[in-house]
């Protein structure tokens, strides 16, 4: 039998290898090296971290291929890159660069306000954001091989990530407790394909790896998300917008591994210097909240 590339198993399996790890946003090769040396299990290459996108405004698009390739050359760990929601040509371009994972991300300005990318058409796997179980299952139905709860990117405020993890976990637990004949209406209500709803009800978990993202800024935030059932953590602005990125990055990696050990968490939380200043999600007018992008 010959080799099969781009199968659901190798796409989802790639995400399995990232579990228990931290994926860090980086904007250049130097930051990528710092992330790798700190123990990041992957890096997300992008031109502006979410905090800057938020501060500077304007249309946020995929990164320059030159910049992505410099980061690929600088590190041996997997490199991810973002495309705009629904922008399948940006996805084609990023795939051709040999990037290891594509994030179809609400942090960039959406391209299509109805449809997401048909991710089955690609060899490269995709991760997508979700605020609830229905949204997660719609993305998986479109071919996403990994889900991250959205949180509110670029804020340093972990409250929305918490809300989304509670929501996704709660909806999974609710499905698990339902009678088989109630799942049809559950699927209708959460606007998700019945087969996936049934699978979640039977297994009690998503069929793909679930990471968390958005507003995570400290080792304690990372450990909180792991205790809430995340398989791993994305940290965007939280590292390189802080006072001492290398030390904070290493601390967050350790906190993600030893998420249930308060002694280790205390040790890695000491002397980290300033965390990113941050914005309270409640101070951001609703139309400017990134988590609400995605359909």
């Amino acid at each position, binding site marked *: *039998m010959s080799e099969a590339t781009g199968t659901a198993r190798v796409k989802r399996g790639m995400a*399995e290898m990232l579990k228990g790890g931290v994926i860090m946003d980086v904007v250049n090769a130097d930051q990528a090296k710092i992330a790798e040396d700190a123990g990041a299990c992957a890096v997300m290459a992008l031109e502006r971290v979410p905090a800057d996108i938020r501060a500077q405004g304007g249309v946020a698009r995929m990164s320059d291929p030159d910049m992505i390739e410099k980061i690929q050359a600088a590190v041996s760990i997997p490199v991810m890159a973002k495309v705009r929601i629904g922008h399948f040509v940006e996805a084609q371009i990023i795939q051709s660069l040999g990037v290891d994972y594509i994030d179809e991300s609400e942090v960039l300005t959406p391209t299509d306000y109805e449809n997401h990318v048909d991710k089955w058409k690609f060899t490269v796997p995709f991760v997508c954001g979700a605020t609830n179980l229905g949204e997660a299952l719609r993305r998986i139905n479109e071919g996403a091989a990994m889900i991250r709860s959205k949180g509110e990117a670029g804020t340093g405020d972990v409250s929305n990530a918490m809300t989304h993890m509670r929501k996704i976990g709660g909806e999974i637990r609710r499905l698990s407790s339902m009678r088989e004949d109630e799942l049809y209406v559950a699927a209708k209500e959460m606007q998700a394909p019945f087969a996936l709803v049934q699978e979640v009800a039977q297994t009690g978990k998503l069929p793909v790896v679930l990471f968390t993202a958005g507003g995570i800024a400290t080792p304690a935030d990372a450990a909180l998300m792991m205790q809430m059932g995340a398989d791993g953590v994305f940290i965007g602005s939280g590292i390189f917008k802080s006072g001492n990125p290398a030390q904070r990055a290493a601390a967050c990696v350790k906190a993600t591994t030893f998420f249930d050990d308060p002694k280790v968490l205390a040790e890695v939380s000491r002397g980290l210097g300033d965390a990113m200043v941050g914005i309270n999600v409640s101070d951001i007018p609703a139309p400017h909240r990134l988590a609400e992008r995605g359909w």
Partner: protein
Amino acid sequence: MKIGVLALQGDFREHIEASQACGHKAVAIRREVELNDLDALILPGGESTTIALLARNYNLIEPIRSKISSGLPVYGSCAGMILLADRLVGGVEKQETFGGLDITVKRNAFGRQVDSFEEEIDFAGRRVNGVFIRAPWVEQVGSEVEILATVNSHAVAVRQGSILATSFHPELTGDLSVHTYFFDEICR
């Protein structure tokens, strides 16, 4: 038997489940004291750089090395193979391994994620579904090392005494053949 699975990062949960499905007790290992009383150790898939760094930070390198050299049966898949290799090509600067297996491993040898693949392969007389994810291969083996599987003439499964390593991930497939081989033919 009591199987320890190194649980610093990666797909350790799948190895724990596979070990349990074979009828063994399996525990996650994050600290030195947890290495005591094990009948075998499994090093999972994941990012070898991350796992090596965390192992160094938490003083696990020497204890695991001494367990391996004292003959504790150990199995590593993918990143686990890298961590068992005495010599490494394509690692990051100063990347440490536990070592013990007299092989040279090439990291990410089959390419990036877009090149990841699955393929039926022969493993020690069994037909298994090999799932290769940014997988390494074995460039060169020492005289004591037996090659158990190959893909395009690259060694992807090797054994030396009580040490087994595969560059693919049987823990992701639900097929217990490789785990059974490890428990029944190496650990006994």
